């Protein structure tokens, strides 16, 4: 981690961040998207097995994602919406992880995940073009490119090619996660972004299964230079199916000794009215890292997180 950043370097990162965010907003406004804000405090975070909410007072949590609120707006008839919002996840810390980070989320009614893939291409090409005069767009030795065709793999194709095996619909998630990180991800997105799509059905808590092939979900991840930049999918809009998946996730959390979040009842009721839709979350901080060449997420935010719960000082003998 870089603790002492030169003021001039910090200013470069923050100015580029500002320019990228400004361009993102123009991009969506120009296409008739409505920019909205949804609550940061919630009583029922989306029940996912591996995302930990930070508890606030009075039975509330800081949001881990604005997804449930965004979809309630879709259900209420808003057809093109986006927002840039801070989200909060406990225990996520590393070169690409900050426990408080910024997500760009956008949703389209009457669309599916392939429409979002096209949005990604349009957005990244616009951002690249508008900042190419000042931003390096590099990752290590790789000069990042946006023009030309982007590679697209199904999860099955990518695992066969890079890990040598084929994950089925009930894949062992331990093996899947480790091989994804160690064998697959390092190959994705050089020098152009790459799409990994059609995830095993057991890895898409809120996505629609593929019509005609229910062993996979219509979910994709956008990778660039080995970095996971965005996660999008065709939305599940069947309230009963969604309730069952949430209950499974809550049960998994209970078994793992994690806090079993309450069912988000209002959201489930709103799904009755959700049109066929698609939505996506893109990591703004990682986008700034790719544009600026920053090696650590702390470089592209104004301040790193305050240290909490510092590691215990190791006991030493009084003479040591």
């Amino acid at each position, binding site marked *: 981690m870089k603790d002492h950043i030169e003021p001039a370097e910090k200013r470069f990162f923050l100015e580029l961040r500002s320019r990228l965010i400004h361009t993102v907003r123009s991009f969506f406004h120009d296409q008739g998207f409505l920019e909205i804000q949804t609550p940061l405090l919630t009583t029922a975070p989306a029940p996912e*097995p591996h995302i930990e909410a930070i508890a606030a007072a009075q039975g509330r949590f800081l949001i881990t994602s604005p997804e449930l609120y965004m979809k309630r707006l879709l259900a209420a008839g808003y057809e093109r919406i986006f927002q840039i919002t801070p989200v909060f996840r406990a*225990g*996520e810390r590393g070169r690409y*992880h900050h426990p408080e980070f910024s997500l760009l989320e956008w949703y389209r009614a009457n669309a599916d995940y392939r429409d979002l893939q096209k949005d990604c291409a349009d957005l990244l090409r616009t951002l690249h073009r508008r900042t190419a005069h000042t931003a390096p767009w590099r990752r290590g030795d790789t000069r990042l490119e946006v023009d030309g065709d982007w590679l697209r793999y199904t999860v099955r194709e990518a695992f066969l090619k890079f890990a040598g095996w084929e994950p089925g619909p009930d894949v062992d*998630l331990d093996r899947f*996660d480790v091989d994804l*990180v*160690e064998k697959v991800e390092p190959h994705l997105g050089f020098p152009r972004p790459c799409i990994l799509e059609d995830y095993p059905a057991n890895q898409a808590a809120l996505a629609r299964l593929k019509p005609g092939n229910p062993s996979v979900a219509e979910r994709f991840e956008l990778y660039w230079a080995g970095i996971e930049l965005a996660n999008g999918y065709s939305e599940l809009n069947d309230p009963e199916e969604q309730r069952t998946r949430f209950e499974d996730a809550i049960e998994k959390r209970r078994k793992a000794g994690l806090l079993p979040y309450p069912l988000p009842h209002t959201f489930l009721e709103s799904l009755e009215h959700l049109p066929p839709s698609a939505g996506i979350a893109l990591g703004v901080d990682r986008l700034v890292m790719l544009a600026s060449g920053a090696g650590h997420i702390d470089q592209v935010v104004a301040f790193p997180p305050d240290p909490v719960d510092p590691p215990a000082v190791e006991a*030493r003998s009084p003479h040591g």
Partner: protein
Amino acid sequence: MGTTLTAGDLRKGLKLEIDGEPYLIVDFEFSKPGKGQALYRCRLKNMITGIQFDRTYRSGEKFWSADLEEQDMQFLYKQGDHYHFMNTSTYEQIELPSEQVGDATNYLIENLVVSMLLFQGRPIGINLPNFVELKVVQSDPGLKGDTASGATKPATLETGFVIQVPLFIEEGEVLKIDTRTGSYVERVKA
């Protein structure tokens, strides 16, 4: 036994006990693919053998910090192939075979205080002071007239260690040696 740790505590520089041996995390990366679980990718170095390997851990796994302690020890004497030290706090004496003392044998003179790394009370490494002073016991006179700057000759120190020294160094003189590089620094005025 050290304290119990969880995967969330893992970070670069942390020392763990695995299968009864101490390991240092020399490289660390936190990963969390998509909606998947957190993965803690470590490059581990065995602190006794120096062997490195990569291992990925998941949340929920438990770890033990390595029970390591640094202790100042004074070198007393060498007997046969063994080096005898005294703990400067407890005055307890220990002996180490020369292979465990390693390259430090080049610099150990009586009464030198070193910092010894102990794992579960057993010595596993010696940190020398950066500089030690050692007497030259044998060195041929420099050739007269050879004044080329940087010219050196071998000199045998009182520990038996042979280093390169400038031509003007004579037998009986005391030299300051950098233990990190094993090189001559300067002549110490008697």
